[in-house]
């Protein structure tokens, strides 16, 4: 039994370190979060800056979780060099009003965090997360008049990529009850975009395919604070501001968009050693960032969650709700339910988290339902 534990620990540590090094070196395009049809018309679908642990609680534990990229101050709790990665597979059903239902599937690696103490009071950390997901594909069938003949056509426009958020952060425990964190964010990434038109009359008309790669760039800063009101109650507050997001094709700027100011607060209550509860609220002023865009909306999101059981094998539950920033007409809303399990191994050197999330998004003309299976691995070499 002892040997088995040792083997698993060794395997997990090696895989975790290798994955962390590779992924941190260059965020892949698959580094994207939850896609949504609501993001097609706007800048994209905002990513979730949450570890699997936090996401299993509906995101409620994200401000207090060192391995969730939401706040920097939480890094102060990382007493040892640690790395955590999250991945998930989603099965998404979209039900447009008056159109056929479609089922989609995607696998993503939404977040990676590496953190470790620099001094006794200061912890440095970094990693990546998804800022905006830009992966989607739409297929449009139509009939157009060409040369006096009604010609059936099929258009397929696909985008595969994301705006990634590379973070370098530092957290300091100023006091036994106060931790302060700051982060510098570099927004980067790209999306491979393809627009294809095929004609039913393929004898006379050639298929037209246009390909390009859109590169994104921007910067941002964040600050956050953790305040232990009592031994069991902790408050969190955070603020983030980003520069304009620049989109380039072949080195030429094709678009520049403002990004929202993000701020939020959270409360965590430890009800003994086997139970913890948390809740968060967060605002993002997407509309102020793009006042000319009638399809963008300010968002308010909330979450409530619980973590029950021992530290080695906790069970997690959570509910989230709120709004999505892009959509025609009224602001799209979302409700999510999640649950998960955690398991420590190798004497606490590693932890495997799994979670299941059910989301329902509703907006003008579309309902979207998503099942997401999440897997997270945290290692402390």
């Amino acid at each position, binding site marked *: 039994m002892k040997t*088995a534990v040792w083997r698993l620990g060794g395997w997990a540590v090696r895989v975790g370190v290798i994955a962390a090094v590779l992924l941190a070196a260059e965020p892949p395009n698959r580094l994207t979060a939850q896609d949504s049809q609501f993001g097609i018309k706007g800048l994209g679908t905002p990513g979730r800056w949450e570890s699997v642990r936090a996401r299993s609680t509906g995101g409620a534990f994200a401000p207090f979780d060192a391995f969730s990229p939401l706040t920097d101050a939480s890094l102060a709790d990382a007493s040892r060099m640690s790395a955590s990665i999250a991945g998930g597979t989603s099965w998404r059903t979209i039900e447009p009003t008056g159109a056929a239902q479609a089922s989609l*599937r*995607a696998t993503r690696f939404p977040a990676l965090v590496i953190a470790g103490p620099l001094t006794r009071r200061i912890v440095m950390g970094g990693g990546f997360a998804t800022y905006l997901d830009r992966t*989607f594909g739409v297929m*449009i069938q139509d009939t157009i008049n060409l040369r006096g003949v009604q010609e059936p056509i099929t258009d*397929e426009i696909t985008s595969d990529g994301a705006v990634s958020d590379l973070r370098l952060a530092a957290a300091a425990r100023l006091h036994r009850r106060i931790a302060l964190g700051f982060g510098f964010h570099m927004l980067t990434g790209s999306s491979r975009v393809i627009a294809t038109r095929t004609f039913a009359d393929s004898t006379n008309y050639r298929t037209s395919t246009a390909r390009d790669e859109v590169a994104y760039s921007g910067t941002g800063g964040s600050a956050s604070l953790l305040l232990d009101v009592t031994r069991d109650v902790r408050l969190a507050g955070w603020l983030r501001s980003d520069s304009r997001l620049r*989109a380039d094709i072949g080195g030429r700027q*094709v678009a520049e968009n403002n990004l929202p100011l993000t701020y939020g607060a959270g409360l965590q209550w430890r009800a003994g050693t086997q139970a913890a509860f948390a809740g968060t609220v967060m605002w993002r002023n997407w509309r102020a960032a793009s006042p000319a865009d009638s399809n963008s909306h300010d968002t308010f999101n909330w979450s409530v969650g619980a973590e029950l059981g021992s530290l080695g094998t906790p069970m997690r539950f959570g509910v989230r709700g709120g709004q999505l920033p892009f959509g025609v007409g009224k602001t799209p809303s979302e409700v999510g339910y999640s649950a998960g399990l955690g398991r420590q191994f190798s004497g606490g050197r590693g932890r495997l988290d799994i979670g299941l999330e059910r989301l329902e998004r509703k907006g003008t003309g579309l309902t979207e339902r998503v099942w997401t299976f999440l897997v997270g691995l945290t290692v402390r070499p």
Partner: protein
Amino acid sequence: MSRCGWLVLLVAAAACTENATAPGVCPTFCPSGSISIQDTIFAAIIGRDSSFSGYLQGYQSTLMTAADSPGVVDSRPFFTSQTMITRIAPKAGDTTTVPLVVDSIRLRLIVARRDKQATNLRLKLFPLPVTVDSTWDFASLDPYFTAPPVDSVSISRLLATAGTTDTAITRFWRTVCSACIDSVRVDSAGNVLLMQADSSVIVYVKLDTLEAPLSAPDSGRVAFGFRVAADSFASVSLVTEQTSAGSGPQLNWYYHYTIPPKGTGADTIPRDTSTSRLISTRFDSFVFNPPSAAIDSNLTVGGVPSARSLLRVALPAFLHDSIDLVRATLILVPVSPVRGVPSDSFAIEGRNVTTDLGAKSPLGTTFNSTFVHIGSADTVRIELTNLVRAWTLDTTQVTSLFLRQLPEAASYTQARFYSSRAPAFRPSLHVTYVKRFGFGAP
């Protein structure tokens, strides 16, 4: 835990497949950009167009046309054969020769094209001087073609004949043409018709020694001309020697000779030996009346000697770098309907040139073709999508093309189109293209 871990990895690996494309619900859930298509006729980008003649002569063509449409055209193919031996050494090494005695001759013709609606379609054979060559024209050959024919074969009747049921005959002709399909048809005169898979027919005309005499002064050479006759659609095309060696008219001489006795022992009785010899074509061509008209300011394609037209296209700059061309059609307005027998419709090819040297511009490898119908004044459209698309993608390519008839110099038919000198009817290029998609914007 270990098993659970592996299970998770397996599930994760199995789930690593993507399906991100859904039917678009536009415009609500589609990108703001859309694929925009434009359809434009460039009426004035073809210029500096010219016609040139003399590329191929009738005797260089792969086909020769026989047609007879009174008041329109009279086209007559002819050929002269290679030499045929008139004496043979009965034994190898002997210097003594004996004369051949011809029993019969079979003339093989491959009819590549005929009108299937033609009734009472006949080919008539006329003997010609063996000296016929490229210097002979319609007028000089006319006296021979107006004399009575030596033989005639009815293709329509042969086609209507039931296939022979004689297995010996069938087996013989199957060895002659193993690729032929359908039945072996034989008429009462011994003429044979075999059908090929591409609908062309092979006709074996049986001749006797009076119709095709073996003449020693002529070195065994014979020459025949052909005229076609029918109730309507009197036109056929015969395959020439230029298509491939042995594919032109071919004569099979069946003969025997006598081996003289040596005069000793049992070898005191002369013996007859029968054999045959295939003789191919030395020269074949065709003449027709009226001859092809001289080139004028219009664009001329076809005729004999063959004429080509060179079109130079000044492609607009924006077609080079900001569009994706999906269709390009060359539009040509005929000056007048092409005259001829209705079944003589022919193909016109538009082909790029690798460098523009005027009439001597070498032909490239990108081409397309369309058919021009006899008697039709309709606008001719040639799809040149691949060619123009190549021009848009590679600015170093020469944006000129040749128009030519296919096959060249195989027929009297000649098309004339308005050139850029006629502004109202000049050649134009109809282009359909997709504009560059506006990537990057939300």
